[in-house]
């Protein structure tokens, strides 16, 4: 089989055989039908066939025409000459047809009767020009003359006697041609030395174009056969002029059909045969033009398509009054559909808009269900989802790294605390020793001070990192800021006195409740007031006031700075930044940073302002109701 597939000669031979078989099958089938229609399978003979009548009628016509032509428009001399030649032609020596040509009323005009003869009776009415004739005659039982009757009888009898053989031959031909067709179809498209299906130039022609051309050529072939007679009137007519061109045309048609079958088989085997069609290519081109366009182009194209369809319908409406019943509902349906599609698009737009709002609100977890979105909306929705995922990831990473930092700081400070305990304790023991040396006492003082600072720094460091990452346990309850301010000032009375500053409280009589964690708020006040004590110019006042306004509670703490504050308030709140550049005073520089973080954790705001030497801290919380 493989050898056959790749052998051009074998395939050509098989193809020729196939064509021959097909012609045989066709011919045999036609022959069988003919014999059947003549009743050969029911015991019919030439005598009972329609063929004998056809031939006899043709004879009658010929006779009628010859007579009419002889008697009309000819002078007597010529008429006699023609009639004489007719008599010779239709004498019983040359013709098996015995007849009388009569007028309508029965007057015999011409006859070849020489003796009374029996046979198949034939009668025909003839209308030639304005004259009408009647022909009565017999086809003789003994076909002695070698005329049409004789030859057709010979052929008919021969065919009829072989009728069963003809059926068998056509059936076998059909069977063989179908089998051969299958074999050929499976072997088409292979070429020696090449893998897979090889397309010929013919197979590359777009299928619909090829089909159109094939149909056109077939139509032309059939039309061109118009002047020829397709059916032989007599069985001996096959060598007549008409049969050869018809046969050639038929063969050409069969070849064309075979070629079409072949190319279709090859295309189907090659795969995606529908893609090699002009229609598909046009649609693919349109689709590509459409899909690769921006949404603006799509809108423009769709808009013009919409206008075009409506225009077509308007034209139809005015040009064909009868289609009114069809065009109006179709137009309504179409425009309602377009409206529905527009609504759908707007709904999709809205869902994208919602997703955008969620993202901008910081809800990065939100994901749009893109399954229900169409075209560009889906792409856009997926993009939004990606943004959300990216942001979520970034936020998570950030939180993770902050938590890790806090954990690291906490662990490190725990580890520092143990050696620090020893230092603090042994410095204390040193202080208790009976040391007289002034220098040693001074050094011990430094150790004492610095170890205390180190202790404070370690604690603040942990607090600062925890406050910054929000890793603080909060117990939010109703807290009265006025009470808290009073309590804080009470705690700081001695330290204010030590620093020689005077506290002036304002507006602490009425309650100013907020929702907060009292202990954390105390840390905020503690840090701020501690700063006040450290950095206030002695002999000045510190003003502390609570104010309820516009649903907010504001605590303001104002003091006069000892040092010129030549740094910005933002810098002051950063970690490790201190009002005095020399950093000689105690403190970690984390106080304001912790205070700010803790305030913000409790949904409050913490702001600083510097106006010359006036240093102002403002804490604002939403009022609790």
């Amino acid at each position, binding site marked *: 089989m493989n050898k056959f597939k790749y052998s051009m000669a074998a395939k050509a031979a098989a193809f020729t055989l196939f064509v021959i078989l097909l012609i045989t099958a066709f011919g045999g089938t036609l022959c069988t039908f003919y014999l059947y229609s003549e009743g050969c399978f029911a015991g019919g003979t030439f005598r009972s066939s329609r063929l004998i009548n056809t031939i006899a009628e043709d004879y009658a016509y010929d006779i009628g025409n010859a007579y009419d032509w002889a008697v009309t428009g000819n002078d007597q001399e010529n008429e006699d000459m023609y009639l004489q030649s007719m008599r010779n032609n239709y004498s019983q020596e040359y013709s098996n047809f015995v007849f009388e040509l009569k007028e309508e009323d029965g007057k015999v005009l011409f006859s070849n009767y020489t003796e009374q003869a029996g046979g198949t009776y034939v009668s025909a009415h003839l209308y030639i020009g304005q004259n009408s004739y009647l022909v009565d005659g017999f086809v003789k039982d003994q076909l002695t003359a070698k005329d049409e009757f004789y030859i057709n009888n010979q052929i008919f009898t021969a065919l009829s006697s072989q009728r069963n053989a003809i059926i068998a031959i056509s059936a076998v031909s059909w069977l063989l041609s179908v089998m051969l067709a299958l074999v050929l179809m499976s072997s088409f498209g292979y070429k020696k030395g090449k893998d897979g299906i090889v397309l010929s130039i013919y197979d590359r022609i777009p299928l619909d174009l090829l089909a159109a051309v094939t149909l056109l050529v077939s139509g032309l072939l059939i039309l061109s056969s118009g002047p020829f007679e397709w059916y032989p009137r007599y069985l001996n007519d096959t060598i007549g002029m008409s049969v050869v061109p018809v046969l050639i045309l038929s063969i050409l048609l069969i070849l064309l059909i075979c070629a079409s079958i072949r190319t279709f088989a090859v295309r189907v085997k090659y795969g995606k045969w529908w893609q090699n069609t002009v229609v598909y290519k046009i649609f693919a081109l349109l689709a590509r033009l459409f899909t690769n366009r921006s949404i603006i182009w799509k809108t423009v194209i769709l808009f013009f398509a919409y206008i075009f369809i409506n225009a077509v319908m308007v034209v139809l409406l005015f040009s064909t009054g009868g289609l009114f019943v069809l065009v109006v509902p179709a137009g309504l349906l179409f425009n309602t559909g377009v409206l529905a599609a527009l609504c759908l698009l707007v709904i999709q737009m809205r869902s994208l808009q919602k997703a955008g709002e969620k993202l901008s609100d910081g809800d990065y977890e939100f994901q749009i269900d893109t399954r229900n979105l169409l075209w560009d909306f889906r792409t856009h929705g997926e993009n939004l989802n990606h943004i959300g995922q990216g942001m979520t990831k970034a936020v998570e990473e950030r939180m993770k790294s902050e938590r890790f930092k806090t954990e690291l700081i906490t662990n490190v400070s725990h580890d520092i605390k143990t050696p620090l305990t*020893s230092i603090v304790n042994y410095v204390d023991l040193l202080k208790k020793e009976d040391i007289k040396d002034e220098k040693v006492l001074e050094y011990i003082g430094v150790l004492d001070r610095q170890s205390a600072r180190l202790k404070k720094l370690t604690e603040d460091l942990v607090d600062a990192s925890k406050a910054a990452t929000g890793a603080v*346990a909060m117990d939010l309850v109703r807290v009265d800021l006025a*009470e808290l301010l*009073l309590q804080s*000032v009470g705690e700081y009375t001695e330290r204010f006195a030590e620093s020689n500053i005077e*506290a002036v409280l304002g507006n602490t009589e009425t309650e100013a409740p907020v929702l907060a964690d009292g202990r954390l708020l*105390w840390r905020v006040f503690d840090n701020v007031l501690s700063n006040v004590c450290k950095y206030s110019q002695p002999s000045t006042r510190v003003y502390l006031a609570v104010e309820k306004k516009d649903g907010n509670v504001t605590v303001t703490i104002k003091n006069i700075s000892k040092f010129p504050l030549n740094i910005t308030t933002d810098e002051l709140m950063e970690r490790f930044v201190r009002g005095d550049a020399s950093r000689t005073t105690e403190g970690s520089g984390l106080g304001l940073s912790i205070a700010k973080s803790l305030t913000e954790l409790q949904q409050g705001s913490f702001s600083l302002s510097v106006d010359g030497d006036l240093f102002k801290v403002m804490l604002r919380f939403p009022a609790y109701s």
Partner: protein
Amino acid sequence: MHNILICDDEKDIVSALKIYLTSEGYRTFEANNGKEALLILDTADIHLVLMDIMMPELDGITATSRLREKYNIPVILLTAKSEDTDKILGLNIGADDYITKPFNPVELMARVKAQLRRYTRLGGMAASHSTLSTGGIELDDSAKSVTLDGEPVSLTPTEYEILKLLMENPGKVFSSAQIYSRVWNDNAYKTEGTVAVHIRHMREKLEINPADPRYLKVVWGQGYKIERGNKS
């Protein structure tokens, strides 16, 4: 003469504590982890334990809970963790007090003395009707006297009235204004933190560490209260 067990894996800290305690006249025993501490407790008559939390072999929390199964002696935890949750955990498993590292030796000695006083006085006191007590604080209204772990504390009359008010309602939070109107019998409250100052002074007299009080508590933004005494 009291026997104190010092349990810490850091030898320098143990030595320092030993110096302090010995100088105050206590006899000290040393352990470097929880296991050793439990062994010593079984062999010697210990009156107080100083227990570090983070130790190898057996940590302070576990050791304390094991020790509590047998002994009623006071335990003071030494912790490097300053989170409230750790303190609460320590107190819940049966420690009597805690002190965070790095600690002040003076404060530590004060806590040791207070715990020993309370321990040795336990059960030996007959409470009279006019006596209010919370933790180590006892207020005898008939004698108008206040004692902390048996030691008399001298309070001013105003401070005494405030303490009495709070101790009569243990656990209840009084705002500055409420305390003022009840103690001063005056509603015209414009005192610029008078109550807060008094409370601060009282804490210095009644608490070992006034910044981290155990009895007289500040409820920030709400007022003050005496902790409901659930120990002794």
